[in-house]
């Protein structure tokens, strides 16, 4: 497992509270379905107040993992601590009170069609045995938070997907949980609705200090709201760290491929013309993050060494207030020494440089 540990001090202070405040601690979780392992030794902690995103392809074990946290799924071995209490050996009856501490939202919302919006939101409190007046008051309060007060008496079938998920979120918060589990909560929604749902989750995280563990297959979701990210592949956590750090320096192939959709990629028409050896121009990929991305890297390069240098493609994005970017630079000429100097200069400025190849003519 690659631990990204180079978070700047201010960020570290914000997302690294003392270990005793861990809401979730998983130790060497294993679960098999037949011959295939769904979880193959997962250890993980979720800290109080943070948003931890778990990303992986479908079938990577994300769903099994999140279901182990509220006992919907039992691990074959390993331990699951929720607020310091080991739950993986508890019976269904003993789990029931603990589940009031854990809210859950689902990809397909799972609202009860026969109940009105307010009755759906109030259901966890009904299950807890709270009096009706309290349930309705709490439901009204949460629908206000979700921006759906006027839909209290409506039935879920009359709501849009985004509204349904808002009801799902309100319902998950009804019993004032310590932890919110989000199971692909935005995967069935369009991009705009996804953004509004993620903004609501972020708001709740800030306002209520609610710890959120979300699973997704979309890096964009991680980028928008997660503090830390765990990348899961074939039942193992292959990468774990602050989101900006994983974005800046993805170590595993799976992470790179999941990032592919939202990070600048060398355009196909250039990539198809790349040849090894020599050419009129050399194409470099430069990954920069933090200080390296804030510095006037390209103008310094042009001052220090003879060009010409051409920016072919690239961009700098901000992840958790940290600039993270990828630049594709074309260096003219065939001079090996010159190229080495350019690479050495960029590396000295904390850029990560990769020679992608050469192109014959101008691109």
């Amino acid at each position, binding site marked *: 497992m690659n631990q990204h540990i180079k978070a700047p001090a201010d960020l570290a202070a914000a997302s690294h509270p003392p270990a005793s405040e861990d809401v979730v601690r998983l130790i060497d979780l294993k679960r098999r379905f037949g011959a295939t392992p769904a979880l193959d030794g997962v250890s993980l902690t979720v800290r109080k107040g943070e948003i931890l995103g778990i990303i992986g392809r479908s079938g990577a074990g994300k769903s099994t993992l999140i279901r182990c946290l*509220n006992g*919907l799924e039992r691990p074959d071995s390993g331990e699951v601590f929720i607020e310091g209490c080991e739950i993986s050996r508890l019976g*269904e*009856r003993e*789990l*029931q*009170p*603990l*589940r*009031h501490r*854990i809210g*859950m939202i*689902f990809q*397909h919302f*799972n609202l*009860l*069609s*026969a*109940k009105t919006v307010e009755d759906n939101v109030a*259901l*966890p409190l*009904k*299950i*807890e045995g709270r009096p009706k007046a309290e349930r309705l008051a709490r439901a009204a309060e949460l629908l206000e938070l979700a921006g759906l007060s006027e839909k209290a008496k409506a*039935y*879920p*079938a009359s709501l849009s997907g985004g509204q349904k998920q808002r009801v799902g979120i309100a*319902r998950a918060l009804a*019993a004032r949980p310590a932890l919110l*589990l989000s199971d692909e909560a935005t995967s069935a929604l369009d991009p705009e609705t996804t953004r509004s749902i993620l903004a609501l989750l972020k708001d709740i995280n800030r306002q209520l200090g609610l710890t959120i563990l979300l699973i997704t297959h979309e890096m964009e979701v991680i980028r928008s709201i997660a503090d830390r990210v765990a990348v899961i592949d074939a039942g193992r956590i292959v990468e774990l760290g602050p989101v900006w750090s994983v974005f800046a320096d993805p170590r595993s192939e799976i992470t790179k491929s999941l990032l592919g959709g939202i990070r600048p990629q060398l355009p196909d028409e250039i990539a198809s013309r790349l040849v090894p050896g020599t050419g009129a121009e050399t194409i470099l990929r430069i990954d920069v993050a933090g200080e390296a991305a804030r510095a006037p890297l390209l103008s310094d390069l042009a001052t220090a060494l003879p060009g010409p240098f051409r920016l072919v493609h690239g961009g700098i994005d901000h992840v958790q207030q940290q600039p993270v970017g990828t630049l594709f630079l074309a260096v003219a000429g065939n001079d090996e020494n010159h190229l080495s100097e350019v690479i050495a200069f960029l590396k000295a400025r904390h850029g990560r440089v990769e020679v992608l190849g050469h192109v014959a003519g101008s691109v």
Partner: protein
Amino acid sequence: MSPVLFELLIRSIWETVLMTGSSGLISLIFGLPLGLALVATDRGGIAESLWVNRALGAIINGFRSVPFIILLVALIPVTRLIVGTSIGTWAAIVPLSIAATPYYARIAEVSLREVDHGLIEAARAMGGNRWTIIREVLVPEALPGIVAGFTVTLVTLIGASAMAGAIGAGGLGDLAIRYGYQRFETSVMVAVVIVLIILVCGIQWVGDRLVARLDHRA
């Protein structure tokens, strides 16, 4: 139609309504829990127990395979034990109920099985126990199907009650056979058929209205 025959018709309508209504109610009271038990004990159910599931299934299939006219006669000792007599309208309610209960259990089972498993999982995630899942999820979500199935069961029972004349239970079917067919009273036959059409249409109409009111799925 003579006043005597008319009086007979009215009495027969009442007997049919009584037989259908009582045995319908009994089949609902026993059939719905039986349907729930079938769904709950099946693989992946909330009270999975394949042994119980298979046993229940076998008993239900057993009762459902016996033709009703045979059941009517075969159950005479049971009927006598329960209502004290083996003839008459009340005596017919016992075999009718025993035939309709497994029938309705299967219909209810189909509706209950169609409830999205995600809803059951959501209720479990909220800390709900089996009883909560039955009361808050399974029955309310399946209610439109449960009511529609009950309508089908009532209409089937009207048909089955026609055979109850075999044990002197009376009813519209019996009237049609003895007067309309055996005594060539065509007017009685026509009247019975019209009344049955009205009864079936009425039950279906009420059932459909109720389902429309209960169904919030779309």
